Each structure stands twice: as C-alpha cells, then as structure tokens.
C-alpha cells in the first residue's frame, strides 16, 4: 500500500490552456485529489452582444486556435438556423470535408505530439525526431495533408477565411481536390503504421463508469446537427441543448461545468464511438475492435485510441465526399442571406466533443444574446472525478510518486482538453 505522496502540478504541460492537478495521499488514504481550471476568461459571449451577425463566425473562430474551424462552422450553423437558411448539398459536403480535415489535424496533433511521448517515455516530440524519425515523419505527413486540405477548402488552416454565412466566399480548385483524393488514399498506409504503433502502447487499465453524450448519427457516424443522446438513454433535440448541458459554476474552475443524469458526463471521440459504434465504416470498426475498443468502454485513457479510429473514419469519408463533389458540376459558392429575428442553435461534433452555439437575433440581425457550450467545459467535472478515482486506485496499488504523477497527467491529456476554449 502507498503510504503517502504529494503531487502538485501547476499549469500541466502538453495540453492546450492552463490547469492544475493536485493529489495528496497520507497513510494510504486519499486526502485530496483534484483537477483545477485556472484559465483567464475572455468573455466572448459578451463581446458578441450588439454585433451584426457576420461578426459571429469570424469572432467565434478565435475562441480556439486548434478547433477554429469547428467554432466557425457551429457559429455559421447557429446563424443559418436562426435565419431559416438551408445550406445547399454542395455547401454541406464542403463544410463536412473541411471539418473532417480539422478533426484529422487535431487528432494527429494530440495523438503524436501530446499523448504519444508519455507512451514512448519522453518529455516531448523533440527526442522522437532522433529516436523514432519514421514515426515523426508519418505524423507530420498526416498533419500536413489535413492542413493542406483545410487551406484549399477553408482558405486557411487556422481561422478560416472562406467560410461565411450562406456558404463559401470561393470554391476549391477541382483539379487540386482530385489530387487531394489521391493523397488521402496514400495516407491510409500512414494510418496503418499508426495502428501498429498503438499496438505497442500499454494503455493503463483503469475504469470508471460514467455517462457519454454525443450527437446521434442514426446509423451514420455523427458530425453536424441532429439529436443529442447519452449512454444513459437521454434523447433531446438540438434546440433543447441547455437541458443536455445544465451548466453550473464551482469555485475550482473558471470554466462553466456540466452534468446530466449523473454527477458528470464525458464528450469526445470515446463518447461518439460509445454511442455510434454501428455508424463506423467497416475498416474503422475492425481497427476499433483490434485495439480493444468495444462499446460501452469506460476507460478514459481509451479516448486516444478512439481518436485514431476516427482518423481512419474521417479519411475514408473525405475520399467519398470528394468523389461526390467531383461527380457533379458546381453551383455558386454562396447563397443570399436574409436576416430574421429569432434564435438559432447549432450542435456540431468537433474534435474534443459536442459543441453548441446559440445566438439570439433582433430584427436587424444583431446579436442580442450569445451562448457557447464547449466540449472541454462539459468534460472538466468528469476529469475531476476521474482524478479522484485514479488517486484511490493508485493508493490501493502502492504505486510510486512518479508513476502516480505520470498517470494523472496522462489521464488529463487523454481527454485532449482545450482549456482556453472551455473558459473562452
């Protein structure tokens, strides 16, 4: 049995934003175990008030550098839902392709740069450039491909320029899109190699039962819009998002927090797969099973595996999307926009989980009220409860201080938290 330990991590590394971990064990008893969010708020919801609708997607993208495309698309959907605009099939396909490539970019960044160093026993990706050059090269190739496609479709990989209410300012080049189709095909080999790499990782065997929330794909894999569901059987409409998120504040966090049927729930890749395993493409399903990911999986460390499975899913789907896009002549990039008084809600699955934007408009199309509920804010309480449980688990196993510290860091990293985004 572990007699005592005192872990105090200020500003955890290799995560986006600022959070602290504290674990104190005395005489085999856990005295303290916490996850704290200390990020400074930027007040985006207040900033939007009084602004004309076209500012909303442009500003909201700046909530987060990693998932700026997801935020931009959620904000656009909220505006379009508020005004009663239905995007064309072409726009829908392009947006989904863009979002898939952000997911690929974000997941690869997390898997290789943020999570993998722990599994390979180093402090960052830098030593891996010498010890595992092939691994680093395959990660960079995948990330570059995803970012190149984001540039082509969205205009810019970070804070996209072409994405606007009503569609796009301009369309990608058809020829280059065809070339990207070939590069996506070729990237499957790098993803295969990633799967082999994962087989060599020993994922900590830790379980804590919780509730998982995601969009419902209805047999498809879910991405933009639709019903909200949980593994505890809750089903809600997109517009009823507030009943799904139930935001509250606590003194340990500058981010708002969420709960549903239990004291906390989880969103993200693992939640999506736990709710929508049936919607995965056969090749992605095979990989999930091979890596031991079968729903409902309650091991939070498995989120990294779920992300890898999703990488395969989005690459395959993107190839199909490009085929569909290239099979038909293209329409105008942008539809006319007519403002309307009302409320628009958007739910979008972004890399770290389900993201909601809600905008209230006056008759002139200016924002009267804004609300953004971020995936990581929904995860914070669940992370905190996981840390509590992990401390008990470690105390019982008599692990060394360094081991406990590393496990706690890996646990938080597994969620791929985007903390500045969660506080926004």
């Amino acid at each position, binding site marked *: 049995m572990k007699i005592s330990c005192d872990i105090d991590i200020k500003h955890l590394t290799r995560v986006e934003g600022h959070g602290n971990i504290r674990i104190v064990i005395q005489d085999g008893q856990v005295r303290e175990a916490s996850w704290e969010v200390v990020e400074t708020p930027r007040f985006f919801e207040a900033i939007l008030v009084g602004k004309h609708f076209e500012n909303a997607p442009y500003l909201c993208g*700046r909530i987060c550098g990693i998932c700026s495309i997801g935020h931009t698309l959620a904000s656009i959907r909220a505006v379009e839902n508020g005004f009663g605009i239905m995007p064309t099939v072409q726009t829908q396909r392009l947006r989904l392709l863009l979002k898939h490539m952000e997911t690929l970019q974000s997941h690869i960044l997390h898997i290789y*740069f943020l999570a993998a160093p722990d599994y390979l026993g180093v402090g*960052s990706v830098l030593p891996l450039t010498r010890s595992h050059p092939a691994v680093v090269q395959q990660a960079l190739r995948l990330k570059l491909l995803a970012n190149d496609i984001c540039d082509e479709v969205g205009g*810019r990989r*970070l804070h996209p320029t*072409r994405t606007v209410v009503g569609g796009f*300012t*301009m369309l990608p080049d058809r020829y280059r899109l065809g070339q990207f189709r070939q590069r996506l095909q070729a990237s499957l080999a790098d993803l295969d190699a990633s799967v082999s790499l994962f087989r060599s990782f020993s994922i900590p065997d830790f379980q804590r039962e919780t509730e998982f929330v995601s969009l419902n794909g209805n047999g498809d894999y879910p991405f933009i819009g639709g019903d909200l569901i949980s593994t505890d059987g809750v089903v809600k409409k997109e517009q009823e998002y507030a009943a799904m998120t139930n935001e509250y504040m606590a003194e340990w966090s500058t981010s708002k927090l969420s709960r549903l049927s239990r004291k906390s729930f989880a969103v993200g890749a693992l939640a999506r797969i736990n709710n929508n395993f049936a919607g995965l493409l056969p090749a992605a399903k095979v990989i999930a099973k091979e890596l031991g990911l079968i729903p409902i999986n309650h091991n939070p460390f498995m989120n990294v595996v779920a992300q890898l499975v999703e990488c395969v899913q989005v690459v395959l789907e993107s190839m199909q999307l490009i085929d569909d896009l290239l099979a038909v002549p293209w329409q105008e990039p942008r539809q006319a926009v007519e403002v309307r008084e009302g409320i628009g809600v958007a739910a979008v699955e972004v890399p770290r989980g389900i993201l909601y934007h809600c905008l209230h408009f006056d008759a002139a199309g200016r924002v009267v009220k804004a609300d953004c509920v971020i995936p990581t804010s929904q995860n914070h309480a669940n992370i905190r409860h996981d840390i509590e449980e992990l401390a008990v688990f470690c105390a019982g196993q008599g692990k060394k201080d360094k081991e406990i510290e590393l496990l706690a860091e890996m646990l938080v990293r597994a969620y791929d938290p985007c903390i500045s985004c969660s506080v926004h």
Partner: protein
Amino acid sequence: MTTNKTFLGVPVARPKVGFFELSSCEGCQLQLLNNEATLLDFLSLVEIVRFREGMKEAGDEYEIAFIEGSITRADEEERLKNIRAKAKLVVALGSCACFGGVNQLKNRFNDLEWVKKEVYSSFPIDTQEVKPLSAVIKVDLEIYGCPIKKEEVERIVTALVLGEEIHHPQYPVCMECKARENICLFDLGEPCLGPVTRAGCDAWCPSNRLGCWGCRGPAPEANLARLQIIMAERGISPERMMDRLECFGGFADFVAEVKGKKEDGR
C-alpha cells in the same frame, strides 16, 4: 548560446527560446507547429527550453521569450514582468499580444460589471480591462497577425538568429493584393481594410475573397479619412467599417476618436 549549428559553413549560435501564453486562443503558437514541411529545420535553428503546449520540460534559462496573448488579470502582469526580467529579448507574438486582439472588444463596453454578469451571472470572476504586452513591459519586437503567418515568423527568427536587422513592410495589404492580381473586394461589394492595414500577410484574406479585417494593425501613414470616403462611396455602412476597424485593437485610437464614447451592454 550553444554553437553546434552552421549556416553556409559558419558556426551559428542557437539561442535558447521560451514560448509563453497569456489570454489567447493559443493559435499563434499552434501556427508554429503548423509548419510541417519546415518544422524540423526551424527547430534546429533554436534551442527550445520551454513550450508548455508541446513539451514537459520547463527550462528557466532563455534568451528570447515569445509571448502570445493579452493581459486580462493581475497575475498575468506578474508573470509577464518575471519573463521580462529573465529574457534578453521579448517578442510579442500575434495581435492579442501586440494590440489586445479580439479580446479587447470587451473594452468597448462602459461597464465591466455588465460584461462579467452577461457571462457568469452572479458568480464572482476576476478580470480587468484587456491590455497589450507593451502596456506593462518593454517589448523589443512585434509579430503581427491573427493568426501570425508562419513564413513571416520563420523569416524573423532566422534574421534574429543571424543577427540581421528586422524589417516590417511599410506599405499596405492593398499593394500585396494588387501584386497577386486579385479581384478587388470593393468591386465585389465587400468592405476591405486592405488600403490601411500593414502588409506582410501577402493579402491572405482578399486572396480568399474575404475583405481584410485589419488584423495586423495600421500601415505607417494609413489614410483613415480616405478609407471612410471610399467606404461611403461604395455604400458600405459605417457600422460594418467600424466592426472591422475595432476587431483586433490595432486601430484603437482612431476607433475611440470616431466613436467618442463607450457602448452600453444593454
């Protein structure tokens, strides 16, 4: 400095650099990782001792500090002063650090209490008026943009390492846009701040058919009076023009002059 790298056969010092972030989206730091094709070459130019988003090791010995984000809380001012005390050279990375960025849009309201309440209701939360780095410490070099342009950062860092002088373009984005032979956004009926904004992004947004929002701040000798006339002639409302001018904080003086007073939240 360590001297195990060479440039054209000449030993080059590899300065120790640290990356830091205050209130921001961390997008500017991410842009550095977004350099897949040249990332490894770039990394060999400098010795990174601290990059919290990417590495666990956290060295306290650095010569150059790259700081992203703006100041929104007292503890950030303290952190900033500590970094300044340790670094020989402080670089403000991105528009949040240079001008306050999108974060400073909350300064446009006359009542900070309303801002807090609008987001947190009655829950007590600590925040202050948003400030750029230069309001609190001496900044040696500013790299503009929301986000920063990676090619520009590489150019500047290379110049720093080789001890060359650093030049920012003196002309506006509009010139870069003309050079790229784009269709003028005004001809498409869209507002654009290209005529008054500092170049260096290679007309990033207009080349994607989005009018410039002025993220890099004013070009030297920006003629804002003339911009107002162009906008009016093209039938673009003062509100749309002001939305762009006030977005990133670079044109704050002009905006304050035109608006005269702050806004009520409600």
